[in-house]
């Protein structure tokens, strides 16, 4: 099963490598990992998307909790949550395809954030599956470059991960 694990950790050099090292040393898989400081500058928030049986996910959360610099861990998939990912796509936009690409971006609520004679750069946010759908919907031969952040997640309503 796919799980989204959020964690708060001390915003210190090397903390990220402890998490990454834990996953590789114990053979857990990482689908994506995002990290950035929070409003409290001593803390970073990390979102890890991983896959595994219930037993493996339990071990992952326990092992993460065991890292000295990890302050709090929450498996977002245990409850209601929201997940968003940002993607930037640079596409060839020439001739008839230029108008068609604009329409597709609109349908997916994307924004064109950079324009040149031959290209558009489109910004899209949403669940990972929506970003996948967009890439499938456009003519693949027109894609010049894509960059994705990996998922960020947050609990719904009163579910809060805070110190």
């Amino acid at each position, binding site marked *: 099963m796919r799980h989204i694990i959020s964690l708060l950790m001390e915003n210190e050099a*090397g903390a990220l490598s402890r998490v990454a090292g834990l996953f590789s040393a114990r053979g857990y898989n990482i689908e994506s990992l995002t990290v950035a400081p929070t409003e409290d500058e001593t803390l970073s928030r990390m979102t890890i998307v991983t896959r595994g049986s219930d037993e493996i996910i*339990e071990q992952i959360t*326990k092992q993460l909790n065991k890292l*000295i610099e*990890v302050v709090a861990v929450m498996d977002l998939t245990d409850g209601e949550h929201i997940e968003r990912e940002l993607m930037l796509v640079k596409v060839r936009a020439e001739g008839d395809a230029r108008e068609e690409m604009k329409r597709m971006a609109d349908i997916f609520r994307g924004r064109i954030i950079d324009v040149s004679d031959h290209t558009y750069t489109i910004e899209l946010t949403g669940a990972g599956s929506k970003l996948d759908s967009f890439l499938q919907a456009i003519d693949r031969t027109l894609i010049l470059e894509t960059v994705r952040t990996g998922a960020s997640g947050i609990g719904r309503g009163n579910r809060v991960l805070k110190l």
Partner: protein
Amino acid sequence: MELTGAEIAIRCLQEEGVEYVFGYPGGAVLFIYDALFNQEKVKHILVRHEQAAVHAADGYARSTDKVGVALVTSGPGVTNAVTGIATAYMDSIPMVVISGQVPTSYIGEDAFQEVDTVGITRPCVKHNFLVKDVNDIAITIKKAFYLAKSGRPGPVLVDIPKDISLAKATFEYPKTVSIRSYNPAQKAEMGALKHAVQLLLEAKRPMIYTGGGVILSEAAKPLTELVRLLGFPCTSTLMGLGGYPETDKQFLGMLGMHGTLEANMAMQNCDVLLAVGARFDDRVIGNVKHFGSVPRKIIHIDIDPASISKRVQVDVPLVGDVAHVLQDLLALLHSSRQKPDAAAMAPWWKQIEEWRGRNSSSFKNSIEVIKPQFVVQKLYEITRGEAFVTSDVGQHQMWAAQYYKFDQPRRWINSGGLGTMGFGLPAAMGVQLAHPGDTVACITGEGSIQMCIQELSTCKQFRLPIKVIALNNRYLGMVRQWQEFFHGNRYAESYMDALPDFVKLAEAYGHVGIRVDKPSEVEDALKEAFARKDDLVFMDFRTDPTENVFPMVPGGKGLSDVLMAEDI
């Protein structure tokens, strides 16, 4: 008054009450050695290889209840220490390793004797630090000791760049320290404790399985009280030996790959299992599926939540310090109206006695050739079971565990998790320094001893009268045994053709060497060696090269698939 970083580091060790630092100097730690030179409180033990420094600190920690301390230089000093650190990590030994690092301005430039120490040691430490500001040295060392000793213990490394050890700051050692992200549990939840007591009192075929956590938590007393109060059979892992008196009749011997038949069968067939500071390791329960094929309720006491339900699903987790949890269980049992039902357990004990009657770890002695088991038996008799015994890794380690009966904790010192050959002699140095008047024996093989044999020189320098008992069978015995059983007698590289003359070698280092070839000489040789209170005596016992360790649960098999000596 301002002190240098190096002086601060040494003052911190003094404040922590550190008696001994095991180490080896080098460029990046010169200021720290200078600060050591200028004081007398902390004594330095100069080893001959950094691996030995860490093993010695480890042996010191295992035989006391204190944190072992090692000091090494940057680069090769650290990489040599890594085996020792990983050994301590696998067995959860409290330790602080201080390493020198190249000056901060050189870090990342592939400077002379530079390695990424924090990166290299990360997977085998509980935590590590790179100190980038002289003002952080004291708090970092305080945290290191706190982390090493609390919760599930383990090695903590503090990497200090050379310029930081020269920079100056005012020294004040923090009295207390707290880390907001680190709060190990002490006491288990009351609901779970009550559930555990109920299961224990209703058990018809109970079993208590104990491990290294009992030793680390100083829980031998409450454990013994609990086992006796309940009247249950009890077994121990290799790491837990001595946590419950081995000569007691409720003790079934060690379990696991080379455990007794009765311990393994009782473990497999019990209806309620109380696991105490043990982690269901692969060498202990063998095949997980086979173990799970018999239904039983499992209560698991462990301070590390990640150890619970890692390999085996647990019904009642009791997360907390073993000694605390055992005290709480005892209190609940004492106040309970229900008492353990000896009559209900009688058929179970009868079954256990049948298994025990098969005498699974007996061996056939010989008058022609020295049997290694016989040497350990005689050692046990002559030292009256009171010696501190360290071992290396292999057949001799198993025979030591099987035939030396430990009635007290912290007497049996060996590398269980990592299985580090070369551990025995340097560990014995740490033990002997911690217990200067006591008898320390190192049971080893001719393979293992050569992995840290240079430490005979350290033993001479510090006059450590260790008794080295080499069970010399001319083979890497455990490798040879597996090759005999599982690789069609193809003894690939398990025979050493050119062994040194260990007697002469011991003499070259300034010690006493004794060679023993005949079974009839074993007892006298041991007596002679142990009578030499002030000398290190190296005993080279020429043992039967074909002897195997029994019983044996082959790798990947279940606990009831026991191979006995008579099966071969």
